[in-house]
């Protein structure tokens, strides 16, 4: 396991060097988390808030089943 972690760190270092990016692990976490939250938020909005008929009609019952998601 220690070997794997070391390998993982090595890979990360190589990629960092290749991309010419040197960020701390903490900053890296926040960047990845920010992107992840954005993707999740966009997906949720598309699935539960979109008025596009194909999406809306498919997930209409899910919206109502959640009690707090507004629908028409």
């Amino acid at each position, binding site marked *: *396991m*220690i070997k794997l*972690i070391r390998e*993982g760190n090595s*890979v*990360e270092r190589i*990629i*960092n060097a290749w*991309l010419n990016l040197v960020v701390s*692990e903490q900053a*890296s*976490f926040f960047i*990845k*988390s920010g*992107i*992840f*939250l*954005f*993707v*999740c*938020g*966009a*997906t*949720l*909005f*598309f699935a*539960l*808030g*979109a*008025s*596009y*008929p194909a999406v*809306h009609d498919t997930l209409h019952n899910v*919206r*109502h*089943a*959640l*009690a*707090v*998601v*507004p*629908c*028409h």
Partner: protein
Amino acid sequence: MIRIISLASFTAVFLLVVPARADELNIYFKTTPNIERLRPYADPATMSLLVTDANGRPLTDGSVTIRLNAPRSGGFFSTDFPWVEGTRLQEMQLDLRRGRANWKYLFPIRGQYRLAVNVSTADGRKESKQFTFNVRENEKKWGTLAAFSTGLFFLGFIAGRVFTSAPKGIVIIVFALLAASGTRADNNSSENDAGAALEVGPARVGQPTLVHWRFKNHIDPAPSRVLLSLAIVHLEKAKTVFEVERIPVPGEFAMNFQFTDGAEYRLVAIGEEAGSTPIRSEKIISASALEPPTKAMIPAFAYFIGLIALGLIAGRWSKRRDTVKREE
């Protein structure tokens, strides 16, 4: 002690001497099933009004005007029908039969409803009363929300663990462009059968629609009493949202009724006149939907994203704790 006794005696005499007001009317309201068991879009409730005189006898002749208002918005979360919140759901006048008026109604959302009742008697007496009652949300919906929330939290938890030690990877972000859909327009329409006409105004969520039924003979100088049965059925959910059975009407009936969901409804009216065959009118209408307002969406989506963020933090904390333990 003497003062207490004298005060009690005075009160007793006052209660005995002061007569009940002759024009006093009592209005009682109940639902079947009980209000505690009512749930939105579950089964229609039978709403019953009873009007009695001061002696407790049901009123023999009179009518009630009913106005039902939806719960106001106010909580952090919107209901699933935000346009319905705080609006007039129903307004109609019913004749009392042995002091009673009954109708069926399917409540659309959770919250506190207000039912205003105005009674008018044939001899000119009037009485009004407002009833407020709370309809609780369906427990299944809270269960679904809890499961969905748990899922989002664990999604964030797993991501938090992965992001804490995983090598950099490529993140592909898919942007979804949203297209607004047009609302369906619905024009005034009426259904004329051989002897009756059923007219429904443009139905739109968030505002009452005029529903008007007219019997063939209503323009006669002396229209006879007709027994009307009227039912409104939500076709998609296959649920009766409103119903009155064999209520006496003077040849026509009108009410303001809000179609609370942007969907198709079937209206069926049956008019019965003494000595003639019942006349049935049927009509299918489509209620126009409105997109929910943005302010109603924000709390729900903030809650969902907040749960994922919490999961991320918990996942990171969990991963770091495991790493520290392993190193020890």
